[in-house]
């Protein structure tokens, strides 16, 4: 049995590794456009902050792939996908046939289609090469503007500031930070904490042009205002890399459409990670890519496994600030019960969202005590029963929740 995996990011690598665990004789080939062995993308943040040297970005020691009997072909572009013959074309010349395939081609940064987006001094952060060229440019000490106040944008801003650049401004289209993880109260609290650290914020602004002589010098906004910028880092979302799948005729929407077995419209071809759209959803999160990779590996090995979706749960660490956001955080409609507690002085905010007695969402900001237990409760959609009224208490003994399982 030969399996070809397209992509050696987290989804591709973990699919290969898990398949090897399940089947010691499977022939596994991973084809990678990037020339580097697997590295987890969060490490790029530490690299940018100057906390992790380049040679430590990689997850596995040299020789790992050989030991795992994974054939990993780096720096190769898949130029064609033949779903009828179950074959790929590499670099327009080589043809490889397989018995089954996995699309783990990931995503690219979503760049707004505005004038000047290709100007010198405009960057994104997705790959090692992106990080290296951004760092090189930052050495001149420009005023930095980060477009996007989501998880990645805040992490990038924190890292650049930590590296010693003092003028760092985050621009967000919505009127609050982390619109997907926080409600207004939580976002306001997080913002004031980050401001204390020296970051600046501009909310509710839509960039319409990046202008300058040659390199960027100014960002113009829809409302007519503008901001000086020596460097721009775009962190406004991802775009699944679908081109191959679309050309090959696989069903796709925003991502490659997969069923509950993570199989695409062509039996024997699976998709996992940022490229996959499951029940209308593209997660773009490590834990989900991980779940999907494992599920795909089991199915490849003939041990049929179903994927029911992942409940997003994020623990974000911005310069020592803890934020956990799990499940539904801004409920719309009726039948929800919301419990919350705000302690501005100590930077604490806790919110629980219940439906029919079950915990369906939570925000835990400024405290990590209880965050893991609460996340697990949300993921299991548990009814906190007798403990409901105690959960927001700072001195609650969270180990007591174990009795609910």
């Amino acid at each position: 049995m030969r399996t070809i995996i397209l992509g050696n990011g987290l989804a591709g690598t973990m699919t290969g590794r898990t398949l090897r665990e399940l089947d010691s004789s499977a022939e596994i080939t991973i084809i990678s456009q990037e020339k580097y062995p697997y590295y987890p993308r969060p490490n790029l943040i530490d690299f940018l902050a100057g906390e992790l040297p380049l040679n430590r970005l990689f997850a596995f020691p040299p020789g790992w792939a050989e030991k795992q009997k994974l054939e990993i072909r780096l720096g190769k572009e898949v130029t064609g996908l033949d779903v009828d013959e179950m074959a790929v074309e590499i670099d327009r010349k080589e043809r490889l046939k397989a018995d089954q395939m996995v699309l783990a081609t990931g995503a690219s940064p979503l760049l707004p289609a505005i004038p000047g987006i290709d100007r010198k001094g405009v960057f994104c952060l997705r790959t090692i090469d992106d990080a290296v060229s951004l760092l090189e440019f930052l050495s001149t000490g420009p005023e930095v503007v980060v477009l996007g106040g989501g998880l990645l944008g805040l992490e990038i801003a924190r890292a650049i500031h930590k590296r010693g650049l003092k003028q760092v401004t985050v621009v967000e289209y919505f009127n609050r930070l982390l619109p997907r993880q926080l409600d207004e109260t939580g976002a306001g609290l997080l913002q004031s904490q980050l401001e204390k650290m020296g970051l600046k914020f501009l909310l509710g602004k839509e960039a319409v042009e990046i202008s300058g002589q040659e390199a960027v010098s100014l960002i113009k906004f829809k409302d007519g205002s503008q901001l000086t910028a020596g460097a721009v880092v775009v962190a406004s979302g991802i775009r699944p890399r679908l081109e191959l799948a679309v050309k090959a005729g696989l069903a796709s929407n925003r991502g490659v459409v997969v069923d509950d077995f993570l199989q695409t419209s062509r039996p024997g071809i699976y998709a996992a990670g940022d490229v996959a759209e499951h029940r209308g959803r593209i997660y773009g999160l490590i834990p989900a890519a991980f779940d999907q990779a494992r599920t795909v590996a089991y199915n490849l090995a003939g041990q049929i496994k179903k994927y029911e979706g992942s409940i997003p749960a994020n623990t974000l660490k911005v310069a020592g600030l803890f934020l956990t956001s799990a499940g539904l955080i801004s409920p719309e409609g009726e039948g929800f019960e919301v419990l919350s507690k705000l302690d501005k002085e100590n930077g604490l905010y806790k919110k629980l969202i219940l439906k029919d007695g079950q915990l369906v969402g939570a925000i835990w900001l400024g405290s990590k005590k209880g965050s893991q237990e609460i996340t697990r409760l949300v993921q299991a959609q548990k009814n906190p029963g007798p403990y409901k009224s105690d959960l927001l208490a700072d001195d609650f003994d969270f180990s007591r929740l174990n009795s609910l399982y």
Partner: protein
Amino acid sequence: MEKWECTACGYIYDPDVGDPEHDIPPGTPFESLPDDWVCPQCGVSKEFFQKMD
């Protein structure tokens, strides 16, 4: 001894178990792991771990 959780993928480092695959014997506290130790599940560096309560 305290357990630590990977904030990227959720892997839990349990000192009582160690990380035998990477020659970390049982009984090794998180703080004593070598600097170049990475999450055995997803590969992020030690900085991404947080102590569990």
